[in-house]
């Protein structure tokens, strides 16, 4: 539709009545200009950082000297066998996580969506919270539980007869896999697959049951093959995310020399003097190595959109029989390991002089909290985090709503390009984006005043969460029946008035959920701001990283508890709101 709300009407005087609808009328030229400006800004923010990396990768001068161009960075990248090892670790770690994650994730998602598993609603909420668990604090708690001879769990196990050696060392390849499984690798699959399983027609399962198949056979022979395309799309998406992981690998891999792509870039940047050129060249290689998987994922998900979703389907649950309670216990145990264990033990750590050492005269103390409260850096970081999370959430809600609305509704030549731009950040690992932004904010004169302010971090967070934010609001917009808007126009509402009174109230819950997700992301973000949040703008997450690096676990635990509390709170709130939207949307589309 044309927004030119009041296109010239020949021979007819405009209506004299004061109207809500003509107040915000914008001429088509101004509208086009504004949209083009939006396109340019978004395009610049997603493209420039990568472009800047490419340019920097050809700068070979020493730190602080005049710029010289050359290819020596690239020669170094390809002469290092470090790179091959990092590439291998990146891919193999991601692969193993996905392999275990998908098997468990698919089984659990099916049981939650399709069977009479006890407490499945609560379990689903549990996985939602697990999905939000911030990686760094969780890593820390597993370090405290499973790192070497002194770790609590290992000590407990060594008291058993015949166990001489520590049972498991978290500083290892498997340790990295374990912590990833405990944070997002399983939870994200449950989260994404449960709705897909719900839309499966249960008569397909029932037909197999009545043909004499056991419930396990129904699952493997009927459910999994039908859902295979959807499962594969989810797996590819998580695989890409896994390759981009940063903080868990940094903490757990570095002591044993297990490096991945993001950590070798980070170490190049934190060397004295920082090797910007090498880090940039590595970043470009990193992006290039991810691109094939993104193309594969896009190609595959376009070919196999979620099938088997028809208008009418029954959704009766399958009986797990005597396996109900054993399976419930297994899943509940897994969820406990994913949520309560990290949170509980991390909290415990904040009250101990030395975590896990009870043999002291007085193992318990409030010193850590007192120190944290009086520690200038922690207090400042706490407020930095709050400021960062709130400003990112608020500006993100506005920005993504505008972008999603333009993509879905506006007749604008650049709508498709804009859509493409919002997908681009998924390609770029957080740490690489961080490096790109660092170069953009220090290198481009126009932006230099911003460097060292919180605004830099806000922008980085916004670019990092742009894909999910825009796409979620876009889905909400698409779900609003077209006639709901047309009815408002027909009733005399202008574009703006209609948006405010009809569209916005209907997508408001989705926007709120996005706001909370940005809030949680900003709270826990490490990779994407690792190179930006230093000095006076340092948020809690980066301070925690620094403390961990220097081995001050108890103080890091205090910060971890703070981050976890804020993140879990926003996750629960988002879940509550999102659950209510789900219903609202069904009604809206059914209307």
């Amino acid at each position, binding site marked *: 539709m044309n927004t030119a709300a009041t*296109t010239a009407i*020949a021979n007819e005087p405009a209506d004299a009545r004061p109207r809500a609808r003509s107040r915000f009328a914008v001429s088509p030229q101004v509208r086009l200009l504004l949209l083009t400006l939006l396109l340019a800004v978004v395009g610049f923010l997603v493209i420039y950082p990568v472009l800047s990396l490419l340019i920097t990768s050809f700068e070979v001068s020493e730190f602080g000297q005049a710029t010289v161009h050359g290819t020596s960075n690239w020669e170094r990248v390809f002469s290092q066998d470090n790179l091959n090892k990092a590439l291998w670790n990146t891919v193999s770690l991601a692969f193993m996580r996905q392999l275990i994650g998908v098997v468990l994730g698919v089984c659990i998602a099916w049981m939650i969506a399709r069977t009479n598993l006890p407490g499945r609603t609560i379990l689903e909420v549990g996985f939602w919270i697990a999905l939000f668990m911030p990686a760094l604090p969780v890593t820390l708690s597993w370090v405290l539980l499973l790192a070497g001879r002194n770790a609590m769990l290992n000590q407990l196990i060594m008291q058993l007869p015949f166990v001489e050696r520590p049972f498991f060392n978290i500083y290892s390849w498997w340790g990295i896999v374990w912590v990833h499984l405990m944070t997002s690798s399983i939870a994200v699959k449950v989260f994404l697959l449960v709705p897909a399983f719900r839309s499966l027609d249960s008569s397909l399962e029932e037909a197999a049951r009545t043909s004499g198949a056991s419930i396990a056979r129904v699952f493997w022979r009927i459910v999994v093959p039908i859902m295979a395309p959807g499962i594969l799309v989810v797996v590819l998406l998580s695989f890409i995310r896994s390759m981009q992981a940063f903080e868990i690998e940094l903490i757990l891999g570095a002591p044993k020399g297990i490096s991945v792509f993001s950590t070798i870039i980070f170490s190049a940047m934190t060397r004295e003097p920082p090797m910007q050129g090498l880090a940039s060249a590595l970043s470009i290689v990193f992006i290039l190595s991810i691109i094939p998987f993104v193309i594969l994922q896009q190609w595959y998900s376009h070919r196999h959109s979620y099938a088997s979703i028809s208008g009418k389907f029954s959704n009766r649950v399958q009986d797990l029989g005597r396996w109900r309670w054993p399976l419930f216990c297994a899943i509940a145990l897994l969820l406990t390991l994913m949520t309560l264990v990290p949170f509980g033990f991390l909290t415990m750590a904040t009250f101990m002089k030395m975590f896990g050492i009870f043999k002291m005269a007085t193992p318990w103390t409030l010193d850590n909290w007192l120190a944290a409260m009086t520690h200038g850096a922690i207090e400042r970081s706490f407020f930095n985090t709050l400021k960062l999370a709130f400003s990112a959430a608020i500006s993100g809600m506005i920005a993504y709503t505008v972008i999603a609305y333009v993509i879905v509704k506006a007749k604008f030549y650049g709508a498709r390009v804009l859509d493409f731009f919002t997908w681009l950040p998924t390609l770029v690992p957080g740490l690489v984006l961080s490096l790109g932004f660092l170069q953009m904010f220090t290198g481009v004169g126009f932006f230099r005043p911003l460097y060292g302010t919180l605004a830099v971090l806000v922008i980085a967070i916004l670019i990092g969460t742009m894909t999910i934010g825009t796409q979620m609001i876009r889905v909400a917009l698409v779900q609003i029946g077209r006639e709901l808007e047309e009815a408002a126009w027909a009733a005399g509402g202008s574009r703006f008035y209609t948006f405010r009174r009809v569209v916005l109230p209907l997508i408001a819950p989705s926007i709120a959920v996005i706001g909370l997700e940005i809030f949680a992301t900003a709270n826990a973000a490490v990779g994407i701001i690792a190179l930006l949040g230093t000095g006076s703008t340092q948020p809690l997450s980066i301070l925690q990283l620094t403390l961990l690096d220097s081995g001050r676990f108890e103080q890091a635990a205090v910060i971890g508890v703070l981050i976890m509390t804020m993140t879990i709170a926003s996750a629960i709130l988002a879940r509550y709101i999102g659950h209510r939207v789900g219903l609202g949307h069904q009604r809206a589309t059914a209307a």
Partner: protein
Amino acid sequence: MTQSVSQGEQPNVSPVVLRMEGVSRYFGAHAAVDCVSFELHKGEVLTLLGPSGCGKTTTLRMAIGLERVSSGRVLYGSRVIDAPAERIFVSPEDRDMGMVFQSYAIWPHMSVFENVAFPLRTRGAPKSTIDSKVNEILTHVGLAGFAARPGMHLSGGQQQRVAVARGLVANPDVLLMDEPFSNLDAKLRDRLRTELRVLQRRLNISILFVTHDQTEALALSDRIAVMRDGKIEQIGPPIELYTHPATPFVRDFLGQSVLVRARIVESGADGTRVRLGDGTQLVSHGRNHLANAATEAKCLLSVRPEEIRIVPAAMNGAANTVAGTIRHLLFLGQYYEAIIDLPRGQEAQMHLGREATWHEGQQIHLQFPKEHVQIWDRQ
């Protein structure tokens, strides 16, 4: 063909509220609506009737401005509201029409009151006016007392009433309705149809109505425009379209017909005489649609089944009859549904009354009243 003015057709002297002048709408090279013209008069219900994809909804959407016309002009009263040649386009919100959508489009986050008040709010009406007008119209549609009900807690019929109230609350000159009964069950549909007709007469509103349901169109409309492939095939009062369809499409779309192949014997002042395959001769006083009515020209006779009288075979020699045999008979309570074999492998499907007893295999004669037999080209 000769178009005689038939019963019920008087020139409408009420002012024209909506006029489409040679309106077309192209989607790519495909003409969804192809040079459609009609006028909607004050207080009139005009129905666009046709199968799905005939362009009726697109025509309606062009009237409100949700689609723009590719060529032609749309006038609202005396005001041009869409005319690409003159670079005029008034957007939907400035057209002051009311519209009822097929899905009703009740905003789920608003109460019944807020839904209905919306058109008044966009027009900047004062609060007191809004209150009184909304309550008045809710009473009219039978929803008094429902004002505070949330939009999503309404049954289908209630949603439809809210949609009508919302369409009418700002006193538009035209109410546009896009298949407003198609989402309701049959009983409710009949009741709401009657209610709408009563409300329309009481408020003297003009309605442009879109439907694919011929019963609905016949029951509701002052005039019907039958559409096919983006064009209007025929426009006129329901009785005129039913009794004097101008094209085979209109004939077959509205109601049933018994069709019989024949050849012209002679055309004269006393109607047209035709001969059936078995030699039976019939006379038609109805309309002759043949371009070439020369002797021996092939033609097709049509009669509405309810005009046919059944004459027992014994009473041979009755005028204008065709011999037939009852092949299948279904008792449906009020009447029998029969399939009757006619000469040369043709058949007629019609209702037989309960006043006589019928049986399968029975020989009967079908009497075609002369004035109801129409002659068509045999395609």
